[in-house]
């Protein structure tokens, strides 16, 4: 697999009159391989969109360099900046950005016309792109006559018509309704398999990112937090932020004493889990509500505080020390409110008790 998109020490700072200098992207290092589907995931303001715009060339970087298909396109050191139109990328935007004054055919033909391709080939290529995005028959419609999903397909067709090696997708599905989102996700994946382009996909929706990506980057407040496959990110998050960002999380404050783990607020009953090396006296263990075993015979003894019957699962609130744990089980595991029960934590993650530094920084950002 060849390196397709490489970021080295990429930093982008914005200077605003009111807020001073803000580092939107801080020393990003990452490599996206050929044919890979790579997602940038994070809450708003984490730097994911800015990174994408740096790759596209809509922003010039403050420091570092960017390489596309083996060609340097942005470099602070060499004072190099290739404008977006010369980067040979495909891109789809959140708001579709189809041109309302052109019919569907002209929208899709635009990149080809710019390249100066002859009319016959344009016809052929546009036809094919429209077929691949199931838009045949809409050639002479205006975008405003089509639905949101169809408009986004125009944008897709326009992006694939030039057969680019790298496709940038900037939250392309977030303006669509949930049902359509799933179909489009699948269609994008299909197109990628067919044309074998590299996809960089920006989103704040974790399930979207996990469903579509080979690998993904989770970032927060301008920093890369973790880059890995969806499975590893879900199972081995490096910190509490990633843990809570991907899927539902249950955090338990624990105290370690005499080689045993106690839930905070109950020093009588120890938890039966192995203790990793290098732990402080106070730690946080993290697990998923659906990864907690609820039984009638072995484990940490407690009782059901509250039961909620939901469409696909039953949710229980179970006290552990002075905390309430959320436990999700299939409907077939039945407990009644107030009933005695035992719980087991399966492969929990261990994190330091408090991420003070991160919390203060988050607070500071929220204030400005």
């Amino acid at each position, binding site marked *: 697999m060849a390196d397709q998109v490489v970021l080295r020490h990429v930093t982008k700072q914005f200077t605003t009159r009111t807020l001073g200098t803000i580092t939107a992207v801080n020393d990003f290092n990452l490599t996206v391989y050929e044919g890979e589907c790579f997602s940038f995931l994070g809450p708003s303001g984490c730097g994911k969109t800015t990174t994408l715009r740096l790759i596209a060339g809509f922003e010039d970087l403050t420091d570092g360099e960017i390489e596309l298909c083996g060609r340097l396109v942005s470099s602070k050191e060499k004072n190099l900046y290739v*404008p977006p139109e*010369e980067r040979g990328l495909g891109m789809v935007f959140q708001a579709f*950005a189809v041109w309302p004054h052109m019919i569907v055919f002209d929208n899709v033909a635009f990149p080809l016309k*710019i390249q100066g391709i002859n009319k016959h080939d344009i016809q052929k290529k546009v036809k094919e792109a429209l077929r691949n995005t199931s838009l045949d028959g809409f050639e002479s419609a205006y975008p405003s006559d089509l639905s949101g999903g169809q408009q986004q397909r125009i944008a897709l067709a326009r992006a694939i018509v030039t057969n680019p090696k790298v496709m940038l997708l900037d939250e392309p599905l977030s303006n669509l309704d949930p049902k359509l989102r799933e179909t489009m996700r699948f269609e994008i994946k299909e197109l990628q398999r067919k044309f074998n382009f590299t996809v960089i996909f920006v989103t704040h929706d974790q399930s979207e990112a996990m469903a579509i990506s080979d690998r993904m980057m989770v970032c927060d407040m301008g920093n890369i937090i973790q880059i890995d496959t969806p499975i590893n990110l879900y199972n081995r998050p490096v910190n509490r932020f990633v843990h809570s960002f991907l899927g539902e999380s249950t955090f338990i404050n624990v105290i370690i004493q005499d080689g045993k783990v106690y839930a905070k607020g109950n020093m009588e009953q120890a938890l039966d889990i192995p203790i990793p090396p290098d732990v402080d006296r106070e730690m946080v263990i993290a697990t998923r509500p659906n990864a907690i075993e609820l039984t009638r015979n072995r484990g940490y003894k407690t009782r059901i505080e509250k039961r909620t019957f939901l469409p696909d699962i039953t949710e229980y609130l179970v006290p552990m020390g002075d905390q309430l744990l959320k436990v999700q089980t299939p409907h077939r595991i039945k407990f009644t409110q107030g009933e005695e029960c035992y719980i087991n934590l399966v492969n929990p993650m261990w994190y330091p008790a408090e991420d003070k530094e991160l919390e203060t920084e988050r607070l500071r950002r929220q204030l400005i």
Partner: protein
Amino acid sequence: MTLYRNRKRSDLAAIDGKKFNLDLLMTGISFILLFIFAVIPIAMIAYNAFFYKGQFSLKLFTSVMTNKHNLAAMWNTIKIAFWVTICGTLMGLFYAWLLGRSDIPCKGLMRALFHIPYMFPPFIGAMAWDILFSGRGGYLNTWLMKTFNLPRAPFNINSLGGIIFVEISYFFPFVFMQVVSALERMDPTLEESARIAGASQGTVIRKITLPLVTPAISAGALLILISSLAHFGVPSILGFSKNIYTLPTMIYALISRSSGSFEGIRQGAALSIMLIAVVGIALIIQKKVLSSGGYDIIKGKSMRPTLIKLRGAKYPLLIISTLTLVIIVLMPLVTIFLVAMVRAYGLPLIPKNFTFKNYSKIFTSKATLDSIKNSLFLSVTAGLLCMFLGVMIAYVVNRIKPKGKGILELLSVLPYSIPGTVLAVGVILTWSGSLGINLYNTIWIILVAYLARYLSFSMESASASLQQVHSSLEEAARACGASHTESLIDITLPLIRPGMIAGFFLIFLPAMRELTTSVLLYGPYTRTLGVQVYSLREAGMIPQASALASVAIIIITICNALITEITKSRKGV
């Protein structure tokens, strides 16, 4: 239940148990008022143009239509409007692009300069240009002749070209404002996706940006076209001395030359039909273009558009554009204030020749003082009356929604759509005794004209605020036991008060600087501020005219600052 089932919405007011029906009363008054203000004057023009002594006759109309002076005036009107529209649009477009899409510095300063033409009545600007570049003895012309030893004055502002130039400088902001707001609202990804598709910056402007703002451009351009066709001030100040007439100034000349005789007014009426025809065509085009609608270009997350780097051209462009703006916007202003201080017209503008006597004369001359008083009285009265009438009509149109509300809406904008000169002719024909009421030579005839002309301003302002007050608020009051009238007074009116105040100033300001209709309607004791400036200048008392003009500008500027303050602190509903 069955008792109430068949009640219509309009009957709701009747549940009040009051003897009279407030809704019906307001609807009735609205129709009657608009009939009097809008329909009768226009009908009177048509009647007098085509009927003579109760007999249908095309004689007058054809003689006016074929008169070669009138045809020349029509041709001038069209020529001026054409060039003003073309050049004004290009200029507005250039500045809109510069401020909306390039990285030119000093954008704040330039934006501030664009506000000056709004406060500065065009005829006063024309006066200033006349002072500077008049073919005979304009200040700058004389100076240029002296310094460069020229045999003739290098510029002559008293020409078609001069009129076009001055009108451009007042009308180009129409296009600028429209386009700059379209550019600001436009989704930047529309342009970015074209860059990604491989288009260079120039191609993006040509193929994407320009077509997308075309609706805004044409809306602004048509506004220029219509304003220029109907414009009176600039061509009358600059054209009369060289016998250059446009249709509005020709109508004025016909009526003032015949010193109010009926024959002159009849000719004016016939000529008005010509002007209405020309403006009407432009209005129809405008309606067509505006109803075909713009593109939906506002979408997605707001992102700063990529500004085009001007690089080397940055500072030359900055200097040229700022300089042009300063010249066309600031120079007339400075000229008026300087000439207002000069001891005698023609003396060099140096401190030695300066005096404040022209200003003190304003307060000693009864005619001038009266004109200020008249204008204040007219503007405040017209503003207040229009404010209440506008709210009433807006309420009828938006809430009561009677049959024929479309007609009501149309009638309220009609008097503003027709040129001020034509409206004045209609008002003269209606209110000078032929229908039993004679207001001629009184201040009331001017007030009637102002009411007709500005009613649509306050109606639109009130409509906008009414649409923001959801009718459920009034219904909630009804549910709490308030009567229809009480809910109207206690709930709706207080909520739209900011809109009403804005509506007042929207009328007060233009009424203070009004010239076009008042110049046809004033009597010996009912001069307005605009008319007094105009006649002082006609009488050759240019420094005094300038002093009064500068006072007018100061009053308008202060009021404008007030309105900005008021609308800023306006509470959202």
